[in-house]
């Protein structure tokens, strides 16, 4: 008999970091190592409550621990926010297909993140920056609603100093602490200096943000097959069986959650 794909690995909570009033990062140590490719996701079980899918926000090169960044939006995430150091939870996965980093070699890359989309992108950025010499250019453009909701401030400040990365952040509405750009993330894409026709764009964020970002990127000249999107669907079993996360002829859990726009653009209502 193969391993049971529905059964989680016992996992200890090592650390809980409050990022914003509604977002926490949980550092986890599973009893067995779980190695994941950036962009793959896991199912986190709270015993007696249920499980929910998250894309790890940590470095894939770190194998013995894993971090997930969780926004409080529902029943399971509310309980995740109550976790404390030492608590026991469960992990299943990794599931799905990650970002095809090898296909990005020698290319110019633009990473566009919005709100909750920052979590998977932090893991992606760690991976890209570890091998930044493989890419011709690297841009990061991120936006969220308010400065208070901006996560990973210390990382983004460090990234801002790097020579191998061009980073810009924006918020929809600023406050007295905010010195940066104000406006939607689509308004800070125009100064991205790269060859759009051959460039790679990676977008992760709420569906409405991805919809408008994709439209903008196409206007700029990015090719449909060079735009990578993270599709948010109700991924439950993680292995293409339970039926909840169907997207056209695919299941987000096993064929995604990262899809080339060209592969899904003809399916009806992909942004809903």
């Amino acid at each position, binding site marked *: 008999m193969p391993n049971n794909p*529905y*059964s989680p690995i016992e996992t200890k909570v090592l650390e809980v970091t409050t990022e914003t009033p509604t977002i926490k990062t949980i550092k986890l140590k599973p009893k067995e190592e779980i190695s994941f490719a950036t962009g793959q996701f896991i199912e986190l079980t709270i015993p007696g409550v249920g*499980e929910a899918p998250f894309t790890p926000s940590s470095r894939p090169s770190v194998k013995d621990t894993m971090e997930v960044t969780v926004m409080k939006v*529902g029943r399971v995430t509310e309980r995740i926010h109550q976790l404390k150091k030492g608590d026991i939870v469960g992990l299943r996965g990794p599931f799905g297909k990650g970002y095809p980093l090898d296909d990005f070699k020698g290319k110019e890359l633009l990473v566009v993140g919005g709100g909750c989309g920052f979590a998977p992108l932090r893991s992606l950025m760690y991976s890209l920056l570890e091998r930044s010499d493989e890419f011709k250019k690297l841009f990061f453009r991120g936006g969220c609603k308010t400065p208070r909701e901006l996560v990973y401030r210390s990382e983004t400040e460090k990234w801002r100093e790097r020579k191998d990365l061009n980073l810009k952040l924006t918020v929809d509405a600023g406050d007295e602490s905010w010195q940066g750009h104000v406006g939607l993330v689509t308004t800070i894409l125009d100064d991205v200096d790269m060859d759009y026709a051959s460039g790679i764009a990676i977008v992760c964020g709420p569906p409405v943000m991805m919809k408008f970002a994709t439209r903008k990127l196409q206007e700029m000249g990015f090719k449909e097959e060079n735009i990578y999107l993270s599709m948010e669907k109700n991924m439950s079993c993680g292995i293409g069986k*339970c039926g909840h996360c169907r997207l056209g*002829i695919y299941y987000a859990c096993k064929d995604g959650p990262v899809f080339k726009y060209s592969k899904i653009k003809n399916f009806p209502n992909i942004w809903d």
Partner: protein
Amino acid sequence: MHYISKNNFVKLLEALQADYEVYVPVKKDKQRFYKKFNQSSDNVVIGEVRAYEPLKAFFSRAREIVAEDFKTDKVPSSTNKPFAIVGVKACDLKGFKVQDHVFTNHDYKDPFYIRNRQQNLIISADCTSAIETCFCMALGIQPYPRENFDINLSQGKEGFLVEVGSQKGETLIDKHSSLFEEMPDEALSERDGQRNWVAKKVEDNIKENDIPHQESYKGIIEKKYESDIWKDEAKTCVECGACNTICPTCHCFLLYDQKSPQHMARLRIWDSCMIKDFAEVAGGANPRPKLWMRLRNRFEKKFDFFPKVADIYACTGCGRCISACPAKIDIRKVLKKLVGNAQ
């Protein structure tokens, strides 16, 4: 070909009880229900038409524990004997093509389903009648099994003609060889006459209700995606999900963790894509907030998704959803509208 008399067939079922939980279709009023076989089983009907319950219930249970605590390497063991399911009809066997694709064909296989597929015994049977809702032949199925069985029974006057369909079936016949006999001369022509008679009845059903054949299904969902058909059909739907649970090809489930922090037990429970929150994500976004969208999705899955990913229409023409629907939504009529020219 082998042959078994009616008396010896009962002896065979009794013998099978040593290794299996034997289930037989038992008639109650106008329906046939799978009941556990025992010495005093009455009203057992091997022929006639499919049972009320879909065959899938013996392979992925409506509700079962799939994980306990953190025993990742173990599949919770079943203390029960495997099932021998008797009198299975051709429409239900087609359901395997869909269920097998889902549970055995991907990178991840479902160990529970695979165990049941390996261990359960299928003793199928020809249909010996057709009911008003039968339309299997529109889906390319004959009303007698041609594949996916261990042994198949064709009922005659005095006994059953027995066809072997698998190694497991062959072994079974060897093991109980004293119960079987040479096929009588007239058995084959009796079987063929019976089969033709039932096929004619199903064809009459299809003609009478003007049900389109699957050869005309290609592209019907894409063509009618924006049609009013969906809103019209969904008007009476009460979102009960009976069409899903009763369907031999529907496979969706939800994972539900028992509410006890001390003891983690994860249940797999059949789910229904007609229920509002089926595709809803934690943040509340729902790709199919309206009932008619979910009805359309159900047909899209059966007549667009499965033909594209598995080269099969996920309908067996068993007609169960027609009888089960309290709103009288009739898949035959929906197919007719989808194939038709009206928008």
